[in-house]
């Protein structure tokens, strides 16, 4: 007989999702299915709009990382205009992106995942949230808020607004950076850096406390994809998309963004609004790959900044060259936050950053444009086709969370098999299934602000498909 247990707190994912766990005759997990239940429709309703409105429209996909959509969009528009943007414009865009990485990674780690990590997966669900974190670990909560504040304030100083700024435009940015704002951002860096260092130290000390989670949180060999430069250093704003197989061999590179579809195919799944991209040469579903912090550190040889590189060496000493457990997304995320803060400092000290020529002017010179950036959650692709006048004819957006669709499904299955007992659904098991999704830091709606109730549903089904138990967290 079905019943519903409601866990009355926010589940700390961005968007709406439902997970189904199918049981066999022995009450063991037979299969799982991850459903994303929202439909957005951006690709369709932008048709007919002028291409230069695309950054503003697509930024509204997300309230957490609008900067990623803005940057992928303006890069696609640069390609339509067929311009090379001024150097200062390029550096400022990268600086904005680094600030975005710091704030988004801080949100994911401290606000969404730290309650599991610091309070425990089996701790009281009433307290396993950011409020509980403030009570039990006020210093960590303060650090999380301060780090996110630094990133958000840097975005505001650069772009004028924290959320959905109109500063990034096709051809560059619309206003140069003042020396005063540069100095303001620089003045916040030491505190941000010390918070990240402190958090990395704490996290590394805790690693041995999660043997089961490290082992079974999406611990599977898959391919990994991420942006690097020609020297194989980590890149987040611009670079080559590189695919490595599970053993670490480089198997494909996408040097020209417009060629992404040679390697990335998109499958539709019957029970989800989220498309499932796959690596074309291996086909669907064998071509599953991962993106985001874990994948980026697997794909790049080095970060290219001194402190992050030292951390990367230690990370690989602990976990190996190719890290396959999605539990370590958290670890990789912290190293990337360190990289972003170091890269910000490098950029802020470049004299050309304050150059006042920040925008190239042009109209439509190409009928098609693709922009690729690394969103904090992974590779983000915007692909536009326009008519001669610049009216949008077609759009394709591949968001980071989409790349993870297949990997998240497999991870859910692995965690469910390890922790879910078919005879009764325990809260700790529910939370671990949720937590493995959280490790990927998915942005399912890609629009929600960290406010309100975000429901997540788990359904336990018998072999005949009968609903045995339903748990709603939200």
């Amino acid at each position, binding site marked *: 007989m079905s019943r519903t247990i409601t866990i009355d707190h926010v589940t700390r994912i961005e968007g709406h999702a439902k997970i189904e766990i199918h049981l066999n005759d022995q009450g063991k997990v037979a299969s799982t299915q991850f459903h994303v239940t929202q439909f957005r429709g951006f690709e369709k309703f932008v048709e007919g709009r002028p291409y230069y*409105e695309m950054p503003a429209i697509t930024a*509204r996909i997300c309230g957490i990382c609008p900067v990623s959509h803005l940057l992928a969009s303006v890069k696609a528009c640069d390609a339509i205009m067929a311009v090379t943007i001024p150097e200062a414009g390029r550096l400022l865009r990268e600086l904005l992106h680094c600030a975005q990485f710091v704030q988004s990674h801080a949100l994911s780690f401290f606000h969404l995942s730290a309650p599991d990590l610091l309070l425990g997966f089996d701790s009281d669900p009433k307290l396993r949230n950011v409020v509980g974190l403030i009570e039990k670990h006020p210093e960590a909560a303060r650090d999380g808020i301060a780090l996110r504040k630094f990133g958000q304030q840097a975005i505001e100083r650069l772009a004028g607004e924290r959320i*959905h700024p109109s500063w990034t435009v096709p051809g560059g940015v619309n206003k140069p950076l003042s020396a005063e704002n540069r100095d303001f951002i620089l003045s916040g860096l030491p505190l941000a850096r010390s918070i990240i260092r402190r958090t990395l130290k704490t996290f590394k000390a805790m690693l041995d406390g999660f043997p089961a989670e490290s082992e079974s949180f999406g611990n599977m060999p898959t391919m990994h994809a991420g942006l690097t430069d020609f020297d194989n250093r980590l890149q987040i704003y611009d670079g080559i998309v590189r695919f490595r197989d599970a053993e670490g061999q480089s198997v494909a590179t996408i040097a020209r963004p417009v060629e992404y579809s040679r390697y990335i195919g998109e499958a539709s799944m019957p029970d989800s609004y989220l498309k499932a991209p796959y690596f074309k040469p291996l086909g669907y579903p064998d071509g599953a790959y991962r993106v985001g912090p874990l994948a980026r550190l697997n794909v790049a040889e080095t970060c290219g900044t001194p402190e992050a590189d030292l951390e990367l060496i230690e990370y690989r000493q602990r976990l190996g060259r190719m890290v396959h457990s999605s539990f370590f997304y958290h670890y990789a995320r912290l190293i990337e936050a360190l990289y972003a803060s170091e890269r910000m400092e490098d950029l802020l000290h470049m004299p050309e950053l304050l150059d006042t020529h920040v925008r190239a002017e042009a*109209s439509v010179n190409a009928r098609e444009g693709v922009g690729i950036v690394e969103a904090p959650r992974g590779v983000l692709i915007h692909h536009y086709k326009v008519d001669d006048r*610049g*009216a949008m004819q077609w759009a394709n957006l591949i968001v980071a969370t989409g790349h993870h669709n297949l990997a998240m499904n497999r991870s859910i299955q692995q965690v469910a098999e390890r922790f879910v007992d078919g005879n009764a659904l325990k809260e700790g098991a529910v939370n671990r299934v949720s937590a493995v999704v959280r490790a990927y830091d998915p942005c399912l709606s890609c629009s929600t602000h960290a406010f309100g109730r975000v429901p997540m549903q788990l359904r336990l089904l018998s072999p005949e498909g009968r609903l045995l138990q339903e748990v709603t967290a939200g």
Partner: protein
Amino acid sequence: MNNKISIRIDGELIPATPGASLLETALAHGKFIPSLCHMKGLSSVGACRLCLVEVAGVNRLLPACTTPVQDGMSVTTQSDKLRRYRKITLELLFAERNHVCAVCVSNSHCDLQSLAQRLGVTSVRYPYTFPKVPVDLTHKKFALDQNRCILCTRCVRVCAEVEGAHVWAVSSRGVGSRLVCELNRAWADSRY
């Protein structure tokens, strides 16, 4: 010769010039009457219906922009009824086309938006019609976005009365009305 007349606006005695409109007279004396289609220097057409006022002795509402002042006229510009009607009118304008402020190039410098804020329109009670209307991007410097058009015809009148070019007009009727360039050509094909 004294060519001034007197009217009362919201009880206040105000001198007025014969032939002037109620709206001009009220605005000249610092009274607020909302309007979207009125523009100083252009003829008045009474298109937006936001300047409707109550005139004593007349049993229907009159648009202030096309109603000439008359000696002894007593006008009410603010009442619960007018406020209700004005909000309804604004909501219908929003429901009729695709007004998406967040991504609109006129966001924060838009008469429709600021009037809605001033009159307290916080939601639209009517179902949006989501019409599929064209965007003309053929001109090198300008774009015509029918999604945001409220048919105020300011552009039609500026083009005819100030510029003398008569490029713009409104075709069709009612909810199907559309702004057209030179008998429905692409903007790029206009001599202007």
